[in-house]
């Protein structure tokens, strides 16, 4: 047993807040948010642009530190061991590395985690096949459409088989049909490994597919009827 509890919450936020800047120019992106995320949960963070969804996602991923409150990952370990590994993050917007082809991009988190390059690429090909992207293997990011790039980024998140999968607006650039397929894949992948899935979106149709809805507005995370784990 390591220093973290596998039967505990994946993430625990206690009055977490994030402020950018200082003094008169300070902008509070997230007011004290308190929540827990457990394995197997499928959560939709829903809100308008600029509501604080991405900030919360970055905090959950350990990419940023809160300016107030505490955030811990009881079942995953400390901040330094979250990525690559138990947490995978699909970033909003183009997030592929321009000089790497599709397979290399997808394999990158595994290689960063110390997995042999050949094996990493094999697994990357598998993840791409799952998203029906086999024909894109040797393409460079600049040769892909916006939607294709987003799907490759999702494949890169799935290939890590994370315990917490965070997807920031993963369907923002996709048509309805493809978006539905992507959500299917994300849900399926999360279910297979009993991972938690958190998807930020402003699309009610996407939010509807997930079993919890956490609305975010003006930096405040509000408790939804379907959610019992979080409160603002």
């Amino acid at each position, binding site marked *: 047993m390591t220093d973290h509890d596998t039967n505990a919450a994946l993430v625990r936020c206690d009055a977490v807040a994030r402020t950018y800047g200082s003094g008169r120019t300070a902008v509070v992106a997230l007011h004290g948010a308190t929540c827990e995320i457990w394995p197997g949960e499928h959560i939709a963070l829903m809100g308008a642009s600029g509501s604080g969804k991405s900030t919360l996602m*970055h905090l959950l991923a350990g990419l940023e530190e809160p300016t107030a409150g505490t955030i811990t990952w009881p079942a995953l370990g400390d901040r330094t061991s979250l990525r690559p590994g138990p947490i995978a993050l699909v970033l909003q917007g183009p997030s592929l590395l321009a000089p790497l082809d599709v397979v290399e991009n997808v394999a*990158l988190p595994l290689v960063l985690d110390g997995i042999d390059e050949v094996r990493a690429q094999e697994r990357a090909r598998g993840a791409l096949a799952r998203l029906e992207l086999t024909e894109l293997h040797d393409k460079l990011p600049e040769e892909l459409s916006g939607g294709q790039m987003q799907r490759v980024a999702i494949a890169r998140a799935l290939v890590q088989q994370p315990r917490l999968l965070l997807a920031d607006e993963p369907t923002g650039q996709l048509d309805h049909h493809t978006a539905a397929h992507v959500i299917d894949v994300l849900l399926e992948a999360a279910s297979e490994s009993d991972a938690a899935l958190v998807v930020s979106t402003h699309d009610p149709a996407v939010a509807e597919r997930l079993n919890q809805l956490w609305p975010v507005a003006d930096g405040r995370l509000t408790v939804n009827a379907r959610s019992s784990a979080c409160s603002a």
Partner: protein
Amino acid sequence: MLGLTWLRGMMRRSGRLGATALGVAIAVALLASIGTFLAGSQATMTKRAVQAVAVDWQVGVQPGGDANTVLDAVRARTVSALPVGFAQTSGLQATTGGSTQTTGPGFVLGLPDGYRNAFPTTIRDLAGTGNGVLVAQQTAANLHIAPGDTITIGRTGLAAVRVRVNGVVDLPQADSLFQKIGAPAGAQPQSPPDNVLLVPARAWHAMFDPLFAVRPDLVSTQIHARLSHALAHDPSSAFTQVSGAARNLEVSLAGGGLVGDNLAAALDAARSDALYAQVLFLFLGLPGAVLAGLLTTAVAASGANRRRHEQALLRTRGATARTLVRIAVLEATVVGGVGALAGLVAATMVGRAAFGSASFGATTENALEFSVGAALIGLTIAALAITLPAWRDARSITVVGARHVVGRTPAPRWLRVGLDLLLLAVSGLVFWLTSRSGYKLVLAPEGTPSISVNYWALAGPALLWAGAGLLAWRVAYMLLGTPAGIARLLARPFSGRLAGTVGATMRRQRRLLASALALVALITAFAASTSVFNSTYKAQADVDARLTNGGDVTVTEAPGVTVGPAAARDIASVPGVHAVEPLQHRFAYVGADLQDLYGVRTATIVDATKLQNTYFQGGTARELMRKLGAQPNGILLSAETVKDFQLNSGDQVRLRLRDVRSTRLIEVPFRYVGVAKEFPTAPRDSFLVANADYVAQRTSSDAVGAFLVDTSGSSPRAVADRLRSRFGTSAAIADITSARKTVGTSLTAVDLAGLTRVELGFALVLAAAATGLVLALGFAERRRMFAIALALGAKPRQLGGFVWSDAAFVTAGGLLAGALVGLSLALMLVKVLTGVFDPPPAVLSVPWAYLTTVAAVAIAAVVIAGTTTIRRARTAPVAVLREL
């Protein structure tokens, strides 16, 4: 309106714009400071050429001409003019110490009152009062006389006259003083007369007016004149001015006089040197400016992707191609203007620091010309770096295409057609053709006022530089592009298990990396070739000065003073003297020629006066001295003597030397063992080198002509001053520091130290900028990539793998390629610019300390750029992800 909005936006990206302006500033500062310095140098060359002339014009009164008419005509055109009588004597005779010496024919000059004031550098006093009857040093040596002795002057067809000698003098410019006026250079006497006497005009007239009556062919009059020295700054214009005035005088004299134009002859040499200076400017300044231009382009190009994105956004909002180009022109104008202004300010500061404000530009107009020219070039660079790519993109790139950042673009067309190899081949061909013509860079046809530079010869090094730069690009590009995983191998030391991924990024960005490597290589080559050239140039200037002076300090015994080698102990006791080498000096007759004979100690002379291998033929200095030492009666002769007398190694040579005890000329046998082309303190034409012991034994005297003093680090000037205060006027003491300023061509006499400092300083700045700045900006452009990698979980060490692999490849590859190219360039430049070296260098002088500094600065800049990139990427990845 859009332009102003764009400008406001630009201010928010002041870092990249500042870096672009810095590139422009470097080019402008380099061109302005070097240009104005060399313009100043040309003025210095004119000034020095003028100062070096003792008598500007020697107007020979022609048979049938009236001396007074000629004098009046010359006075009307000059600052001062005085008549000087020239009479040929049948010989001179003196009886001293019970023996009588007789010389062959010679000259007796009649000097009017005030001559020495009007032409102070014509005569240098060695002994005596300096007034009355003066005898030339060699004549005094031939006759064994000193001030106070009496000599007899032979007059053809008349009775000889006797005069009492008041002093012994040196005639530093005897060659021009005794020139054959009106004769072309090839028909001039090979050497000045051995026997010369100077007497006051009144006495001269008393002696030679009667001779003129019977033998007018043996007596003549010259008008010596000094011109106004308010001449054009440029030696070429000054030459045209002076030679034109001389021709005008000759025409007005209608055959009554011919002008020996010493001033024009000196300016003629200086104008060749001025053209060499122009060439130096081309090869020192232009590559630097080109590099600064390339650097500016590289800096601007590192933001090209962002610009393309922005252009694409503007296009989607209806901006036309013309609007985009206008915006780019505005950006280029702002960047170019700021850069040019900063460059000119820097040039002024550099000028003050390196050259002193007085020599920063010959005139205000001159400095202004160079400043405006440099600023215009700066603006052009900005236009080429910013506007041209923007114009190209605006015409050809679609909104979708603007997303492309790495692409699968094919190899550039120049690489496919082999332009680099072609340039190298042409460079080799030009060099070969230049070497066939003996590396004649400055063409000055004799007798014509026109003079030109063979700029074609410079094409050799220029094409080598460009071709090698492109070749470095090709090699880097091909190395990274090979499927065999060379990129992975290169990346492995810095990225470990991530090598495959890092190698892949390097492979896909090989155009960018190859460009950065080629830029570093070109700058390193520039720094290396310039510093090696400068260092070799400086070393040769030292060699030249040492060749003239002999040692760091040279103590030459006054005429009539006889000192043996034991006196070296007295000299050695003076503080600052490290070693003393006695050098015998005698005169010896080789057939009918009187030549200088030097008696040396072969075991010590090589190190004592740092004998160069280039002074000798058929072996190194050490080998020739060893050969001479092994043969007690061995002798080294000039190539000319060997040729004239058809000698073969081992042949016996019989010379006539004066035996000190009997004061008679005696025949001394020597054995010819080798050829000496130059020798310290020796004249350039003919001289002999033999073993000191043998000469001493055969002439019954070990008298030393000069002591060569090695100061070994102590200031030669300070040691010379101490020696002067110790020995007073009993010896002439010269130091190498002073000699350096007076010997050689006016070009070598120009102190290039300031220029070198500027040049090498700029090379350092360029090296730092090319490595640090270009990599930093390249990394900055990839900060989103690093932020994504961090978001995916890359550790700082892994991020370092990406950064250090690129940095190491560009820096190590660039420095290595640059060192190789720089060395080749230096070799070629020294050959092509062989005219500026006298004597030519045997080996290149490599300034290791400077080159190490260049490498250290480049590496330090890379380390700073890399660590800053990693630190910044670590501290704010989310901010970057949000920003972009």
